[in-house]
C-alpha cells in the first residue's frame, strides 16, 4: 500500500506502546535481489559451472568439425548430423546433449543450494532477524536460482551460436520436414527452442527449492533434485505408466523439436509449458508452506 489511511491505522494500532511498523525504503526488494544475484553469479563454483556448460558446444563443435570427412561423420545423437550443414544447429545439438543430465545438475545445484546453503552456513538466521520476510526471501532465492539456470542455458546457446558460426557458417535453415526457411526465421526458431528448454527447467527449480527448505544439507537437496529428474526420465520410458507420463516433469522436454516443423503445433508447446507451470505451482506452494512455518535451528 502506498498511502496510509489515518483512520484505519488509528483503529488497528493494538497497544499504545507498540512501535509503528517501519516503512520499507523505496527499491528495497530490488536491492535484495541485486545482492542475491551478485552472490549467485559471483560465486566461483557457479562461474566454473557456467564455463563448463559453455565448453560443451565448443567441444561438440570441434569433434564434429574434426570428424566431418571421416567414416564417423554424421553419427551420434539427433541434430548432430545437421550441424555440418548449418552452424545454427550446433545450438540445438548442444541443448539436446545437455538436457538429460547437465541441465538438471545445474538446476539441482542452483535451487538445492538456495535455502539449504544459507541454512548450513548459518547466514539464514541472520537474514531472518535482519529482518527479511520469509516469503520475500523465498521469492528472491527462487529468482536467483532461475537467473542462474537462465544464464546456464544462455551460455550453451551463445557459445553454440558463435562456435557454430565460426566452424560451419550460418545459412538458411532446413527444417525437420525438409522445408527451408530463411536464416532470420530459422534463428528465431532456435531462439524459441532455447527459451522453451529454459522454461522446461522451471518445474525442476521449484522441486529443488522445496527440497532446499527441508534440509540444512545443501548437497542433499541438490542430489535429490537431480534424482527426481532422472527418475522422471526413467518412468517416462515405461509404457505401463501411460496414464501419468504426460504429467511427468521431463515428458515434454524434447517437444522443443516442434519448433523445427514448418507449422509448429502450438498446442504441444503450450502443453509442455503448462505441465511445467503445474509443477511450479505445486512445489512452489509446498516450499512456501514449509519455509514460512519451519523452525530455523541452524
Amino acid at each position, binding site marked *: 500500500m502506498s498511502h496510509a489511511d489515518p483512520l484505519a491505522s488509528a483503529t488497528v494500532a493494538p497497544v499504545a506502546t507498540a512501535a509503528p511498523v*517501519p516503512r520499507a525504503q523505496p527499491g*528495497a526488494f530490488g536491492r535484495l535481489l*541485486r545482492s542475491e544475484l551478485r552472490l549467485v553469479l559471483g560465486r566461483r563454483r557457479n562461474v566454473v559451472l557456467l564455463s563448463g556448460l559453455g565448453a560443451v558446444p565448443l567441444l561438440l563443435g570441434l569433434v564434429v568439425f574434426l570428424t566431418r570427412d571421416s567414416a564417423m561423420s554424421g553419427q551420434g545423437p539427433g541434430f548432430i548430423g545437421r550441424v555440418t550443414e548449418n552452424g545454427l544447429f550446433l545450438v540445438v545439438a548442444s541443448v539436446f546433449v545437455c538436457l538429460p543430465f547437465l541441465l538438471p545438475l545445474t538446476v539441482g545445484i542452483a535451487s538445492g543450494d538456495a535455502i539449504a546453503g544459507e541454512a548450513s*552456513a548459518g547466514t539464514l538466521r541472520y537474514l531472518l*532477524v*535482519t529482518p527479511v520476510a520469509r516469503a520475500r526471501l523465498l521469492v528472491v532465492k527462487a529468482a536467483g536460482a532461475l537467473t542462474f539456470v537462465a544464464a546456464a542455458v544462455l551460455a550453451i546457446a551463445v557459445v553454440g551460436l558463435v562456435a557454430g558460426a565460426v566452424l560451419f557458417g550460418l545459412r538458411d535453415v532446413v527444417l525437420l520436414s525438409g522445408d527451408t526457411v530463411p536464416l532470420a526465421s530459422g534463428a528465431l526458431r532456435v531462439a524459441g527452442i532455447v527459451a522453451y528448454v529454459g522454461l522446461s527447467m522451471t518445474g525442476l527449480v521449484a522441486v529443488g527449492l522445496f527440497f532446499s527448505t527441508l534440509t540444512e544439507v545443501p548437497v542433499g537437496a541438490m542430489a535429490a533434485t537431480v534424482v527426481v529428474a532422472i527418475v522422471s526420465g526413467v518412468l517416462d520410458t515405461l509404457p505401463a505408466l501411460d496414464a501419468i507420463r504426460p504429467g511427468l516433469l521431463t515428458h515434454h522436454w524434447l517437444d522443443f523439436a516442434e519448433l523445427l516443423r514448418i507449422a509448429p503445433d502450438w498446442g504441444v508447446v503450450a502443453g509442455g509449458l503448462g505441465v511445467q507451470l503445474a509443477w511450479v505451482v505445486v512445489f512452489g506452494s509446498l516450499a512456501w508452506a514449509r519455509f514460512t512455518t519451519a*523452525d530455523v535451528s541452524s
Partner: protein
Amino acid sequence: MSSAVLDPARVGQGSGDATGPLAVRTEGLTKRFRSGQVAVDDLALRVPRGAVYGFLGPNGSGKTTTIRMLLGLVRPTAGAAWLLDSPMPEAALAVLPRVGALVEGPAFQPYLSGRDNLARLEAADATADPRTADRRAGEALERVGLTAAADKRYRQYSLGMKQRLGLAAALLRPRDLLVLDEPTNGLDPQGTREVRHLVRELADAGTTVLVSSHLLAEIEQVCTHVGIMRSGRMVLQGDRSVLVARGVSRVRVTTTAGLTGAAARVLAGLGLDEVGTDGLRVDALLGDVAPERVSAASVAAGVDLVGFEVRHPSLEEIFVELTGEGFDVAR
C-alpha cells in the same frame, strides 16, 4: 521514549519480578522438539528496559532456544513472547529493525569480505536507509575494531574477528535492544574486556542488552540483572541483589585454644546451623542473624575473639550451586 532510558530506581529494586516497562517478556514459553525433548519449559523471562540482563546457564540449558524463539526463528510449542511490547513472531518485521542480534555465534558468507557481508545484510534490510549504508557499516566496523581487516575475506578471519564482525552486524543500526548470545566466545581476554566495555557503553546510551553466557565471570561485572537457567527452567531471576541474597553467608569465629567449645555453644545458642570447628576456629551458616549479635554474644559468654569474619559466597559459587556441577552439560 523515556522507557528506553536506564532507570536507577527500577534497577535497584530487589524483587524477582520486574514491574516496570519490559524490553523482553515471555509467559509460559515452552519448546518441545519433535524428539520429545523439552528445551525450554514454562519460561517467564523479564528483561526491564535499560537493563543489562545476564542470561546464564550451562551449555544445553535452553538459552539459545529461548533466544531463537524471542527472535521468531523458532516457534514456541506453548506460551508467548514479547520484544519491546510487540508479540513475537507475529510482529517480527515491525520490531526486529530495532533489535540487534548475535545468535549462536557469527555466520557470514565465507567468500565475501567483512565489509561485503555487512553490505549484504544492509541490502536485506528493507527499512534501513540505503544512502547511509556504507557509512553505518564503516562505523560499525570501526566500533568493533575491524576496520583494518574489513576487506579481507571472512574465510580468513580468526574466531575473534568473526565474533567482532557478528557484533558489527548487530550494530549496523541504532538499536533499542541487543540480544547477544555468547558474545565473548572465541575472544581473548583483551577482546572479552572490549565486549564488556562495548556493552556498558551501549547500556549507558539507553540500549537494553540481553547477553547470554555459560561463563558468569565474563559478564558478571556489566550485568544489572541476571536470569539463571537450568534444564530449560529459570531457577533464579532478578536484579543483582537477588543473586547476592540467594547466597547464604557463613560466619567464622577464631578464638584461643580451649574456648572453641564455648564458642560453638554460643553459635548454636543463637540458632545458627552447621556449626563446626577445627580446633581453633568455629564456623557456621549465618542465616539471617546479624553478625554483630554473634560477636556481642561471644564476648558476653567470655569467648575471646581473636578473629571474626563474615564471608559472602562469590556470585560464581552461587551460580555453580544453582546450575549444578562445573563442566557437565545439563543433559
